[in-house]
């Protein structure tokens, strides 16, 4: 469903992505792992056009695009098929929890308000936030804000949801509640591409792993294989501390 080939991106002289390939099939829960600065987040942002990649191709639903030359109209259209959950939540600060979910439905997708509100209530209910629909982001904890952000992402019934380190800004207690919501989404068959440092989540929830370092993919494959029989020494060292001595 999503196939990225040879994606390249530099910030000035710093080459952040050095030709990365990535494939996500419908129903996949794919995680991108790797040390800080390996280019994971940039990859995700390029895929959703928050950054403009310097080169490479992107195929979505069989439509192919040359990265760096995607017309604005196509960018908008593709974004409406996807959703993005940020590390720092980025809830609309001037909107209530419910409005955060309905905003994109009403404004971008031209859905009638009553229908959007109905969908919004259901989405907030699924993330356990039905009691706080009229709260503003400033009145919610980090974990609650991130759950609202996930409700916002899934309400539009996107073909894929991108998660950019969704729990990195949360303390351990709140991390659990967000991961639980993501786990349920995965069980419901939602296609997800997740940049994360949560190895436990990656191991138990994902079915595909991409391990990146220095702007390149070191190893990619089914989760079980990568975790249990990593081919590369670098992957082994990252996934199993102490594993290098084997």
């Amino acid at each position, binding site marked *: 469903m999503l196939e990225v080939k040879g994606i390249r991106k530099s910030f000035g002289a710093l080459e952040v992505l050095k030709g990365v390939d990535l494939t996500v099939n419908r129903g996949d829960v794919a995680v991108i792992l790797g040390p800080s600065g390996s280019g994971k987040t940039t990859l995700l942002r390029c895929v959703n056009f*928050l950054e403009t990649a310097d080169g490479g191709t992107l195929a979505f639903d069989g439509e192919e695009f040359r990265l760096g030359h995607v017309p604005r109209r196509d960018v908008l259209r593709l974004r409406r098929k996807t959703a993005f959950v940020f590390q720092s939540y980025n809830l609309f600060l001037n909107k209530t929890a419910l409005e955060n979910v309905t*905003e994109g439905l009403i404004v971008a997708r031209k859905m009638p308000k009553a229908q959007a509100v109905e969908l919004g209530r259901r989405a907030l209910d699924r993330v356990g936030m039905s009691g706080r629909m009229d709260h503003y982001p*400033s009145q919610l904890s980090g974990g609650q804000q991130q759950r609202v952000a996930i409700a916002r992402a899934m309400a*539009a019934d996107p073909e894929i949801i991108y998660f950019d380190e969704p729990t990195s800004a949360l303390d351990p207690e709140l991390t659990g509640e967000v991961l639980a919501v993501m786990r349920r989404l995965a069980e419901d068959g939602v296609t997800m591409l997740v940049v994360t440092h949560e190895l436990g989540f990656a191991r138990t929830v994902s079915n595909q792993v991409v391990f990146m370092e220095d702007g390149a993919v070191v190893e990619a494959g089914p989760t079980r294989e990568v975790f249990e029989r990593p081919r590369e020494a670098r992957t082994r060292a990252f996934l199993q501390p102490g594993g290098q001595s084997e």
Partner: protein
Amino acid sequence: MDERLLGIVLDSFPKILIPGLTATIPLTVIAFSLAMVIAVAAALAQFARVPAVTQLCRFYIWVFRGTPLLVQLFVVFYGLPRVGITLDPFPAAVVVFSLNEGAYCAETVRAALEAVPAGQLEAGYCAGMSYLQTMRRIILPQAMRTAFPSLSNSLIAMVKDTSLASNITVVEMFRAAEQINAVVYEPLVLYIEVGLVYLLLSTALTWLQGVGERRLGAYQRQEG
């Protein structure tokens, strides 16, 4: 003596207040509304970095912030007729006050736009919204909340600055007081009186500012 002064105060009060209602307040309301339109447009153009328009905005702000309001009034009212543009006093004042105020408020709004976290725009994009939709629904409302106290400040300053329009023969409150003074010659009483009326208007606006801030600030209040 006291009775005479009291008589002057009572007699002059409506003569000052009426030009306040027919000139000072309309001038302020019309010019400030236009200034807001100019300010938001100039701020948005600069925020979006529209190349030529940004340069034009910088030039406009440079000129109108860098020259005295009184000079601007004189240029437009007394100067422009030389090149065939003759405006009545009130429209001339509206033009100058809106352009002058627009220049200051454009900077306020631009700073407020830049203070909105970058993630808000990205979140709008990821919700499928276009740049314009996100600006209108998300960024601008937040920026206007931030700008509101400064803009209120500008508005209050402007109410008082409209007294300068007396110099181009607009009969507003200050000019009314001057005209009465020319007859009865009681400068201390009359100028204090007109000052008090300005104070009254400013006080009302300060109160409105408080109400407005509480309304707009709803989303920033923490719970509990």
